[in-house]
């Protein structure tokens, strides 16, 4: 028992700060996850869906023009080519299959920009499980097309009108739903955040990214990269590509959304750089770094990239940052936007604004030598969803 309890944490981070009602469900989920994680039938089925449905493996692409422009040899891990247009499906396929194996009849989820919600909807459709997604009312308007995508796939989108009407409130509302329907429902968290076992489980499902990179970079370079750079909102694409390299001599850079600068008022942060500028706290079931005021009230975060716009971050990242294993960095809105344009123009790849933060950091840091000679950037998603935003910014 002690042993199990201990494993809910990464150092002092993580844990299960949730209403008592949910504790048995978390216990069950942990148990089932631990069981199926080792189950060959489960893993074979998951591999099958990752390959035939999601389109994995995603390529590792040597971006020659970008390398020349930025002055360092750059490989792009192409999660933008995964079904749905982002890495999100790696996780929802895993959790969706788990839901099926656990015999739960319903999936609920939160979504910000709608990427995770869309990935849930895909999985709900393909596994035939009723799916409902909470989404901040403001986000349902801003991301109308993603709402429609979810609805087309038979998912019900529930607008959340409380609080700031964005991602944080959608999570709150999803937790409330889960509290009420925990016996029949699986809550599908979309990043390495929240209470144990989610940070571990989501990381494991996303680790397919890093595992592929290990093989691919050995084929191409005959060695590991000097560094890996990933944008970090909750941190799932980052942990997914970092985790398989955690014991290797590879520098890992977690690039957060610096918004318009690392400033904050008593209610709002102008950024979402939780590792860089947050403080220890407890949010959505886990102890982690949190954007909060001096009393512990959670701030509204902000970023040009909806998927990074979150006041928390995965507890494992907080831990890895503390012990110096990952290096937290940030890019500003306008830097990300510039890098977005670079990749479009130089490589014919339209990256998500989230992923553009990772690109922007490489652009800034390449000259310092900090990144070494060979760097892998995780292109966590494609930018078609962001065209309206970019179009708006350029006007």
């Amino acid at each position, binding site marked *: 028992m002690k042993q199990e*309890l201990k494993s*809910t944490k990464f150092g002092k981070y993580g*844990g*299960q*700060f*949730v*209403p*008592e*009602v*949910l*504790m*048995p*469900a978390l*216990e069950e989920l942990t148990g089932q996850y631990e069981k199926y994680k080792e189950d060959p039938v489960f893993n074979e089925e998951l591999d099958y869906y990752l390959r035939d449905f999601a389109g994995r493996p995603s390529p590792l692409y040597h971006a020659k023009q970008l390398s020349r422009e930025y002055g360092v040899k750059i490989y792009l891990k192409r999660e933008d080519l995964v079904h749905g247009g982002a890495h999100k499906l790696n996780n929802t396929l895993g959790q969706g299959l788990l839901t099926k194996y656990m015999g739960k009849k319903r999936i609920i989820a939160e979504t910000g920009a709608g990427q995770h919600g869309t990935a849930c909807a895909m999985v709900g459709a393909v596994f035939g499980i009723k799916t409902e997604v909470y989404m901040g009312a403001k986000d349902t308007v801003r991301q109308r097309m993603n709402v429609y995508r979810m609805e087309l796939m038979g998912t019900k989108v529930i607008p959340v009108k*409380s*609080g700031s009407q964005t991602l*944080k*409130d959608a*999570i*709150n509302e999803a*937790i*409330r739903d889960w*509290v*009420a*329907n*925990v*016996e029949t429902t699986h809550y599908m968290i979309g990043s390495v955040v929240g209470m144990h076992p989610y940070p571990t489980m989501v990381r494991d499902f996303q680790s397919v990214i890093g595992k592929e990179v290990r093989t691919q970079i050995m084929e191409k370079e005959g060695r590991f990269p000097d560094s890996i750079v990933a944008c970090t909102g909750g941190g799932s694409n980052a942990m997914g590509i970092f985790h398989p390299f955690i014991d290797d001599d590879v520098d890992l850079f977690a690039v957060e959304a610096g918004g318009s600068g690392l400033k904050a008022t008593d209610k709002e942060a102008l950024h979402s750089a939780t590792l860089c500028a947050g*403080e*220890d*706290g*407890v*949010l*959505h*079931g886990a*102890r982690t770094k*949190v954007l*909060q005021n*001096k*009393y*512990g*009230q*959670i701030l509204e975060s902000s970023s040009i990239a909806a998927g990074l716009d979150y006041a928390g971050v995965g507890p494992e990242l907080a831990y890895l940052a503390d012990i110096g294993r990952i290096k937290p960095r940030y890019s500003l809105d306008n830097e990300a936007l510039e890098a977005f344009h670079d990749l479009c123009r130089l490589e014919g790849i339209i990256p998500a604004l989230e992923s553009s933060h990772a690109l922007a950091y490489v652009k800034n840091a390449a000259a310092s030598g900090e990144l070494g000679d060979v760097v892998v950037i995780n292109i966590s998603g494609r930018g078609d969803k962001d065209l309206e935003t970019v179009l708006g910014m350029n006007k």
Partner: protein
Amino acid sequence: MRISEKFSELKKRDEGALIAYICAGDPTPEGTKEYVTALVRGGADIIELGLPFSDPVADGPTIQAGIERALNGGMTPDIYFRMVGSLKVHIPLVVMTYYNLIFKRGLEKFVKDCASSGISGIIVPDLPAEESGELAGLCEKNEIDLIFLVAPTTTESRMEQILTRGTGFIYLVARLGVTGARSDIAVSTSELIRRVRTDTPKAVGFGISNGRQAAEIISAGADGVIVGSAFVDIIAKGKDVPNKLEALASELKDGIKIAR
């Protein structure tokens, strides 16, 4: 006054407890003082005073709205403790808040502030037994009760663990779901009351809004009922609030008394 004293006193009178929740600072710190007095007049035996947190995941829409009003009204932990310290009531006061506010203040400072401002107990809906070690130790040292919740989903092994740790009273969650007034009482409630085998008093909350329901809960074997959303609803409507709070408290207390 310690919570156990209150329950002993009630036990002597063979009477159940009315535990009333309102959110401190809803809509202003001054209002809260007046409302607390009204609840006491109406017969509340214990008052839970919510310390508002920006992301109250265990609360339903009614209490969420109260919390939002309180935050907009400027409530902070500092103001909270000052206000509580100035209250002239002779029944136990319990703080209900989320763990991050405690964590951020520092566990020790928070508990000491409770003690010095006259708070008898702490309820943290997002702090399960597993994570509560340090806070429990501090509470014990400062003679403050740390009140735990049990739910219909709570397993036997968890139940044991919680009952060992909980002091003051055990907060029985009447049903799955968040706080909020409902018109019926779930069958699961009586079953849960039976399952919680302890000498610590048992109070049932979540969804109770009138005297009839209160009576049913007490008849089913509870030692107290916890009512929140129904009171917060009165505050939300904002008309003749003190009298209406008092009247609802009386109705509930009457229901509780009839049941024995």
